[in-house]
């Protein structure tokens, strides 16, 4: 396989305005923090974010005007820091469309994309206002006439995933929870990996089941030590609680958010404290 190494700037430069981007990780954990910061610096516009449960990534990209649509099941910092202020404001003011999902319908949409079919049936949703709000249709099972909700294929233009180790061919090893990263890598038209470290990958052949992302699905791999920060990246570091607390406080007001972004993101590449 060819050498797919690229710089973070090069890899993110391939993400066009208006792209539908799937971001790996979940809430405070193993999100592609460095890639998200580069997207802010490159001032992308009109992005759609696909994720089951987002936090700082969604919130920051809303604060910086990069986002038009958020397709997610949950956006918040969980119990540690609560709701996502910039995301809230952007949706409440109508600047960003919250294309609300159940996490399971994000997965169903990705599964349809992966399996090359236009829709995926999904159990549940009965009694919820979501199908009506989102236009999820029910179809009749041709074998029983039972009605089942189906979710349209959700095909990301780019999946951006942070892994603990990768080789130059794009084989990516994930330690611990894989979240929806593997589904995103299969569903997306293009895949960009950022990795804590790029190695020769010789050890991968000893334990190929530890390689979550096969290289042939990957278009670019970026060396990004600390590249999940401020998200956690087990076993290397936890999420940066003081940083996230200060961001959430700043994010409540546009002026303070702007100052925070200018000093922490635009002028420098943040790295783990």
């Amino acid at each position, binding site marked *: 396989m060819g050498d797919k190494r690229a710089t973070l700037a090069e890899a993110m430069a391939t993400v066009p305005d208006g792209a539908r981007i799937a971001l790996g990780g979940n809430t405070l954990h193993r999100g592609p923090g460095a890639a998200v910061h580069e997207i802010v610096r490159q001032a992308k516009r009109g992005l759609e974010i696909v994720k089951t449960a987002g936090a700082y990534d969604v919130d920051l990209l809303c604060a910086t005007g990069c986002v038009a649509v958020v397709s997610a099941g949950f956006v918040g910092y*969980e119990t540690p820091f609560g709701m996502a202020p910039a995301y809230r404001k952007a949706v409440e003011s109508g600047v960003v469309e919250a294309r609300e999902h159940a996490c*399971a319908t994000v*997965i169903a949409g990705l599964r349809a994309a992966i399996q090359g079919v236009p829709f995926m049936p999904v159990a549940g*949703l009965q009694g919820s206002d979501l199908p009506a709000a989102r236009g999820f249709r029910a179809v009749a099972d041709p074998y029983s006439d039972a009605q089942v909700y189906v979710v349209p294929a959700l095909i990301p233009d780019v999946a951006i995933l942070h892994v603990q180790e990768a080789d130059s061919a794009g084989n990516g090893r994930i330690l611990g929870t894989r979240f929806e990263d593997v589904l995103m890598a299969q569903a997306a038209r293009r895949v960009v990996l950022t990795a804590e470290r790029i190695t020769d990958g010789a050890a991968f052949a000893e334990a190929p089941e530890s390689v979550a992302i096969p290289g042939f699905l990957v278009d670019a791999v970026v060396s990004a030590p600390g590249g999940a920060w401020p998200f956690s990246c087990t076993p290397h570091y936890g999420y940066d609680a003081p940083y996230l607390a200060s961001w959430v406080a700043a994010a409540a007001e546009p002026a303070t958010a702007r100052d925070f972004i200018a000093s922490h993101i635009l002028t420098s590449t943040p790295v783990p404290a």
Partner: protein
Amino acid sequence: MIDSAASPAPWDMMAVAMARLLNSGETVFHGVASPLPMVATLLAKHLHAPDLTYLNITGAVDAEPERLPVSTVDPALLHGTRALVTLADLFDLSARGKLDVAFLSGVQIDAEGRINLSAIGPYDHPAVRLPGGAGSAMLMPTARRVILWRTKHDRRTFVERLDFVTAAGNVDRVVTPLGIFARRGSRLEVESMHPGVTPAAFRDATEFPVAVGLDTPVTLPPTVEELTVLRAIDPDGVVRSEFA
């Protein structure tokens, strides 16, 4: 509203009450932002339900965390797991009827045990955009039993009418700082009030009508054994984090 002199701390009471609802042999799942379910499930497993299967959004199976995290997606919850499943696997487990218990919450909860985690005010122009229902719209109709918990019990939480129905389904119990609802038919009824809670206080905190009186059972306070095991599992008091 709770006479703390005569009553246990609400976090202890809720964790213990939730743990008592779990049975050995059951598969139990919690998702994001769920410290109380995390503590309650581990508590039940250490007390009366050793063969309970503890599942959570990290994909761990019966993990034995060395420390309890405040984020319930934290890799700390992987410690000791012998298998790693995915969130998709866990939703599928529920979808095919093999998930016994799912813990869910709601910013608004109505008398039928339906929940709103989506928006306050008009859905398309919300006064407050909420985080969203995560797995609830899929889990509530498919899990065999749904246990709702909410650390706020007031008239803005337990409402006559939801602004949006994020999810509805197989609610079994609702545990709050004031007491426990059980679903009878399609409606929530008060099963017990926690020690020190008066019928008037419970009624005043609930917008929809509830039948409570002096004959309403009182929740058994946490036993010494329950509190001892709880402190051993959760020495840092993560159980209090949802009350911050």
